[in-house]
């Protein structure tokens, strides 16, 4: 298992800004990079790329299905199209085009799912992609990534340049505290332990990892030292690290800004059921659609804020009949 002590500091930049600044840097070296937009760009976001490379910014209008197909055609001509749209439209509206023209062809199209997950401003359930990981990871040939901070966002993009197949990059809205310093390098199919412990193993992804780390003090105050495993690569998964985490702690908690059905929690269960079955507690959006509200209200109500995660874990631990926290023993049998 890779380890990296989280720097856990600072406000961090907006991930979308990190995406755009890095893509502009890369595009200076690589003329094959194009950015396609479905009328979501603003001067401060993809508009920066449009300003830097007006000919390589392709406005496709509010028509995501065609945009994905155009990207596939451009990829056959030797280009590396980065296709930017709200995750909800890219994944659901253009699902068939992603399936037949991107996944089934294996063309190097990069689908950038903006504002993925619960936080989409005040737009509500139509715009909240809470089962996009379930949909995309089920697709043969699709690589599914989600970064935890701006450093990882930038390095994933650098890494993506020479990857020969399709990629879905799940990019959450807003800022995330820094998880990594500038020496961090993303590796496909590799997780990173960002907090050392062994009483329970918490597995999370995306900016949810920051919320998990913020919940650690409350857990430690209750005598639980968690191992926190961050998985930027949702497909392929770091199966070895998942098994190792289960062996170390004996019980696993998954936490995701996504439905508890079909996403990270399900993927972890699939691995553990086959390789090292242990009890798993899945924290995420509980098979429901959410609503329009402020970010703080949303993550609290739908159970993925730091305090909600801590409460859920403590309640689960307390409910387990075989737990032995009070006596200071390991919770699981690992």
């Amino acid at each position: 298992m890779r380890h990296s002590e989280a720097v856990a500091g600072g406000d961090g930049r907006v991930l979308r800004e990190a995406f755009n600044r890095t893509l502009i840097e890369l595009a200076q070296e690589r003329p094959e990079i194009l950015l396609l937009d479905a009328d979501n760009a603003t001067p401060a976001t993809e508009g920066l790329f449009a300003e830097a490379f007006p000919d390589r910014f392709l406005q496709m209008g509010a028509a995501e299905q065609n945009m994905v197909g155009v990207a596939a055609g451009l990829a056959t001509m030797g280009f590396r199209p980065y296709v930017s749209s709200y995750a909800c439209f890219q994944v659901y509206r253009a699902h068939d085009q992603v399936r037949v023209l991107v996944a089934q062809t294996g063309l190097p199209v990069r689908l950038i799912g903006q504002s993925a997950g619960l936080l989409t401003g005040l737009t509500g359930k139509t715009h909240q992609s809470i089962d996009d990981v379930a949909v995309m990871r089920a697709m043969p040939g699709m690589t599914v990534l989600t970064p935890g901070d701006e450093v990882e966002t930038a390095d994933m993009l650098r890494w993506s340049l020479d990857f020969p197949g399709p990629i879905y990059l799940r990019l959450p809205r807003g800022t995330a505290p820094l998880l990594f310093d500038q020496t961090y390098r993303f590796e496909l199919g590799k997780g990173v332990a960002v907090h050392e412990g062994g009483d329970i193993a918490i597995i999370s992804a995306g900016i949810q990892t920051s919320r998990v780390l913020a919940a650690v003090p409350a857990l430690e105050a209750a005598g639980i030292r968690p191992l926190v495993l961050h998985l930027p690569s949702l497909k392929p998964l770091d199966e070895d690290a998942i098994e190792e985490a289960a062996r170390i702690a004996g019980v696993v908690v998954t936490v995701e800004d996504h439905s508890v059905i079909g996403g990270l929690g399900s993927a972890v269960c699939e691995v553990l059921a086959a390789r090292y079955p242990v009890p798993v507690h899945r924290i995420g959006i509980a098979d429901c659609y959410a609503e329009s509200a402020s970010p703080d209200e949303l993550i609290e109500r739908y159970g993925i804020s730091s305090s909600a995660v801590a409460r859920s874990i403590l309640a689960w631990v307390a409910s387990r009949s075989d737990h032995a926290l009070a006596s200071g023993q390991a919770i699981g049998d690992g």
Partner: protein
Amino acid sequence: MTRAIHTQPVAEALAPAVRIDELHETARRVRIEVVQAVARAGGGHVGASLSAADILVGLYFAEMNIRPDAPDWTGRDRFVLSKGHAALALYATLALRGYFAVDELVTFGHLDSRFQGHPDMTRLTSVDISTGALGAGFSAAVGMAMGSKLRGTPERTYVLLGDGECQEGEVWEAAFVAGRYRLDNLLAIVDLNGYQVTGWPGTEPGSQTPPWPAEALARQWAASGWTVLEVDGHDIAAILAVLATAREMTGRPVVVIARTIKGKGVSFMKGWHSRPVTPDELDRAMEELREAQ
């Protein structure tokens, strides 16, 4: 259908008569291969393949700049069979053009064949993009033409759509974008055979109303920023003439609405979509196609 608004005059036939005869003979052989393949495999989209045969032969044997011995040559003209269900006509055309042996068509309908029910670029290098989901191929063709413009290279992109396919919303998303980008290196052909699987009932019992009301389809393309031409989709001389005319047009993408007969070449297959061909039907079809020589 009658000549639609915005339609421009089509040049007279340009190609020498003897060559045109050869092309019609090639199209006849394409039809034979299609009908035989469907009969062997126990199914296939025979009607759509027969309506598209003359268009495909005109493109692959005369119009397009291609190298059958180097199917991945980057300077080649691109072709997208957006009505991917006419795959057998494409395979037969590619085989007769020399991309692979005609004998290989016997693998159609069996495991490990390079010839899938809809064209698959991961199995067949000579397929420029996989198609099958109606509308999707057209978007990819727009991307190819856009790519040539970005590269500054002269190759052209040709895309064949069905008239039923033109009911897909994605077709009009793609047409709108091609019009906005003035992709005059993109040539679309609509195989207007007047049939779709179920369609809307016509006035006679068992009959069907064509997928588009007369002239509405041409108006829709024109409104999306395209120049609209029309042609008899079974007259190869006329097809080549209209393609030559389109090649000289600049500033807008061009669509050629090709009036065709679904099942052309075999009288009793008119309107057939996807179905098996019985041994008796195969004999009768071969008889008609032999007589056409």
